[in-house]
């Protein structure tokens, strides 16, 4: 058999070959017979009444099959898009849930809002015809800024929320926090914006709906991170279709980062329309549509305060955040600035009291939802900017101030609802300081200064909650869905294995990592295991991939199914070896009777299960095919320490990242190569947020000013350094793999480390993100003037 333990091995990815030869199958590659093409007409205004949508000319244009408007959709009884999480406000009232129509009804509320759809024989014909739709807009004043939306006299976006407020929500004991602040020896206070980001997966969203009249069924190919959730929401809430008659396939998906979690109106429209026109209907976003209509991320305005005693011990934290939800409630929008944000404000520290109040508002901007990190980057930014700033004010080494406050005893109940099961924050910080050669920093700073450059160093010690989530806890917090995962292990007669998972890979490498887990458990080769994901017709069920949950939740579901396979295999092996089941052991792919030379390989047991001639048929069903659902008992808590060193050119304000060190504790690591890749990508998105990316709307018109890749600055290869990574392992205590999740860490930990470094370099208290050369240069100029 050879060695069959692949845990911790950097196995090369199984999925790479098809991607490298151009044989990946993405949604836009799917072109069923008789496909027709959809083009959406979108609002060019941030806020306007729809007086009239005249489709007559478009309907007569060459190749046009159908044109639909909001009225048509309403007449057909198509419902709006649901929100998956109910937040209850400080007064015990449910959040305001305005309708989110798939095609605008009476009003448009952001640039990019869908007004109508044209379906034609070819894509160019649909595009030409869309130009012929005449929309009579009565333009209304728009409001794009979250704080401004709360002002008296601000334009009202939804009638049911006259103050544009979706909810005011709070977590923590306000009275105790206020009391602690009164007793504080020192208070550090910061006000900042967590800048709005546009996800920009390189594959644009796409959807191909196909209706089959013969059996009244639908197939939707779609760029989704969670096809079952997409199907459930669409069938049960929006279209009222029988769930079993709808197949949703998310094939190869070209990056998600959160933006492909949600049910979008385009997906609904192509599915619905495919029945109306009795043809497959295909839509693929142009990049401009990705900018205007993919759900955006972040966009918080925050005031945060940290109270410390005379020894630098944290006493309390008080945070007020205004969160911009955009024009409508996207699928998970409401839980991001609340449940996934305020609960992380303890960070790695034993702060006894924390209070956080969040005001969530509607604006004339694209809906805002989870984007890589989803609430946790915002929390880490609050905590780590505060802690670093407090250290500077108290003239204490920022690493030392952190150490004085680290949580060291586990399990640890935070004052903001989470129970950390395990961690070792000293280990990651010590390793990061060493790997980053912090001891040699003073020398490097002097060298920079000799060249007229400003060198700075910044730390961040982040924690996140992953492996979302225990369904009962999530339900109590307002989730309208369970958050378990499903897996099925199908052992074939020859002993080869196909595994069906409800997790979805859109770059994370599940086909390899999950296969390593399965191969290790069954003692077979990685090549003998295939992982199937992304198709509701094949997989029992699935909640999908987001929140770094796939291995911790989806992987555990597979492990549970594998346990059943092994348990049944033992029964079969016991029969074959004429031994007691209790005496059968399974190691390295062989069933053995302890203390004897009796043994049966896994493949023979598999064959026996399917050719049950010598088989206990009276006691055991034939076959070897098991499934399992796994609902986690707690979140997992990846954590780490990042050290960033920058050099700023005072003449231009340009920041160069000289070193970036990330030491993460993801619990057990299955494939270190893949984990490092996840960290690289996360760090780059985090650096993008801190240094380059910032979505801008024109405050008066609601125009998206950063609507192309030339206006919105995505990180290029020359903008980022090569990274120095390491890991420390404290295994998660409540899943059998001991894993925590690694997909978002970089995006969570990087922004505060980088902003701490730049503010250190130029000697200012705070800077807005993105810290572009202009921003840094202006801050330096202002400092000089002062």
């Amino acid at each position, binding site marked *: 058999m050879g060695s069959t333990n692949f845990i911790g091995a950097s196995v090369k990815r199984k*999925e790479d070959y098809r991607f490298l*030869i*151009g044989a990946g199958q993405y949604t836009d590659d799917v072109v069923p017979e008789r496909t027709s093409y959809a083009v959406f007409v979108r609002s060019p205004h941030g806020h306007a009444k729809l007086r009239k949508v005249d489709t007559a000319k478009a309907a007569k244009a060459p190749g046009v099959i159908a044109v639909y408007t909001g009225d048509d959709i309403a007449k057909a009884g198509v419902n709006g898009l649901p929100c998956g999480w109910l937040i209850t406000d400080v007064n015990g009232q449910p959040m305001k849930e305005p309708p989110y129509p798939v095609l605008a009804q009476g009003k448009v509320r952001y640039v990019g809002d869908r007004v109508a759809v044209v379906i034609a024989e070819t894509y160019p014909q649909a595009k030409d015809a869309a130009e012929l739709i005449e929309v009579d807009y009565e333009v209304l004043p728009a409001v794009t800024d979250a704080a401004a939306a709360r002002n008296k006299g601000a334009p009202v976006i939804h009638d049911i929320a006259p103050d544009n407020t979706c909810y005011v929500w709070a977590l923590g004991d306000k009275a105790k926090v206020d009391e602690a602040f009164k007793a504080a020896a020192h208070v550090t206070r910061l006000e900042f914006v967590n800048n709005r980001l546009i996800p920009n997966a390189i*594959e644009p969203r796409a959807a191909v709906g196909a209706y089959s009249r013969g059996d009244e069924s639908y197939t939707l190919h779609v760029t989704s991170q969670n096809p079952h959730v997409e199907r459930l929401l669409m069938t049960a809430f929006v279209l009222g279709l029988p769930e079993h008659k709808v197949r949703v396939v998310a094939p*190869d998906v*070209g990056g998600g980062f959160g933006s492909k979690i949600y049910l979008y109106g385009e997906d609904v429209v192509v599915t619905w329309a495919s029945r109306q026109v009795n043809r497959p209907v295909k839509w693929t976003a142009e*990049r401009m549509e990705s900018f205007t209509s993919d759900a955006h991320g972040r966009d918080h305005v925050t005031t945060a305060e940290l109270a410390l005693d005379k020894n630098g011990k944290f006493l309390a934290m008080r945070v007020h955040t205004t969160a911009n939800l955009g024009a409508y409630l996207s699928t998970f929008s409401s839980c991001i600035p609340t449940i996934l944000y305020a609960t992380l404000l303890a960070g790695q520290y034993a702060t006894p009291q924390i209070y956080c109040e969040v005001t969530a508002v509607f604006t004339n901007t694209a809906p805002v939802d989870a984007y890589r990190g989803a609430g946790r980057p915002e929390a880490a930014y609050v905590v780590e900017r505060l802690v670093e700033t407090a250290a500077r004010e108290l003239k204490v080494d920022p690493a030392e101030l952190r150490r004085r406050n680290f949580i060291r005893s586990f399990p640890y109940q935070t004052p903001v609802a989470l129970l950390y099961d395990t961690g070792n924050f000293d280990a990651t910080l010590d390793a990061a300081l060493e790997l980053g050669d912090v001891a040699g920093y003073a020398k490097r700073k002097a060298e920079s200064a000799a060249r007229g450059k400003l060198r700075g160093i910044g730390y961040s010690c982040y924690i996140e909650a992953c492996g979302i989530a225990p369904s009962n806890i999530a339900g109590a917090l307002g989730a309208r869905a369970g958050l378990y995962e499903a897996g099925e292990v199908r052992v074939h007669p020859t002993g080869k294995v196909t595994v069906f998972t409800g997790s979805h890979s859109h*770059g994370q490498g599940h086909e390899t990592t999950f296969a390593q887990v399965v191969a290790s458990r069954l003692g077979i080769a990685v090549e003998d295991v295939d992982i199937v994901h992304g198709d509701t017709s094949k997989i029992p069920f699935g909640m999908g991939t987001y929140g770094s949950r796939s291995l911790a939740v989806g992987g555990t579901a597979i492990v549970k199914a594998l346990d059943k396979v092994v348990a049944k295999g033992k029964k079969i092996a016991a029969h074959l070896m004429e031994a007691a089941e209790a005496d059968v052991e399974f190691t390295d792919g062989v069933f053995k009777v302890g203390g004897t030379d009796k043994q049966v390989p896994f493949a023979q047991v598999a064959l026996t299960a399917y050719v049950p001639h010598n088989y206990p048929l009276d006691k055991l069903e034939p076959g070897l095919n098991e499934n399992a659902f796994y609902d986690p008992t707690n979140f997992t808590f990846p954590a780490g320490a990042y050290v960033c060193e920058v050099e700023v050119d005072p003449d231009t304000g340009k920041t160069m990242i000289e070193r970036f060190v990330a030491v993460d504790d993801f619990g057990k690591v299955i494939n270190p190569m893949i984990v490092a890749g996840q960290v*690289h990508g996360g760090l*780059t998105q985090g650096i993008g947020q801190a240094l380059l990316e910032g979505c801008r709307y024109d405050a008066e018109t609601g125009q998206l000013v950063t609507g192309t890749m030339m206006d919105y600055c995505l990180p290029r290869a020359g903008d980022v350094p090569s990274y120095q990574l390491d890991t420390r392992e404290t295994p998660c205590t409540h899943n059998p793999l001991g894993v925590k999740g690694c997909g978002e860490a970089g995006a969570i930990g990087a922004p505060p480390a980088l902003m701490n470094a730049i503010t250190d370099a130029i000697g200012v208290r705070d800077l807005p993100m993105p810290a572009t050369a202009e921003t840094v240069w202006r801050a330096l100029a202002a400092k000089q003037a002062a």
Partner: protein
Amino acid sequence: MPVKVSMTVNGKPVAAEVEERTLLVTFIREALRLTGTHVGCDTAQCGACTVHMNGNAVKACNILALQAEGANILTIEGVAATDGTLHPMQEAFREHHALQCGFCTPGMVLSAIDLVKRHPNPTEAVVRAELDGNFCRCTGYHNIVKAILAAAPKVAAMR
């Protein structure tokens, strides 16, 4: 008005009737059904649609099929050997985990081959600067840079 366009793609002569406004990438993806060439931005910024035209990397979303009349086009489907053996650049991407979702990968590989043609012995700084026209949102470029540096001597030796 449909017009006839003909060219050589991955060593094979091809011809089709297309509308004049048809982009090269549309011709490749839809007329030829070679879907390895991807459209990421349709505005010549992301580089996912990169192919080689007469030996040079071009963004296929930014030229018309007609402009490629008579040209020699190489797409990702033509990069590996006919028996499926990966080109050294593809192999280096696999070896160094230089791809995740795979969407930018075909354009990235074709740009990387072009890069090494112009810079047979590149430094990290050169590789990073030369990748200016190709976005990757997954890898943070770290492993792409490593892969290109590792493949460069092998690719340079091929010519």
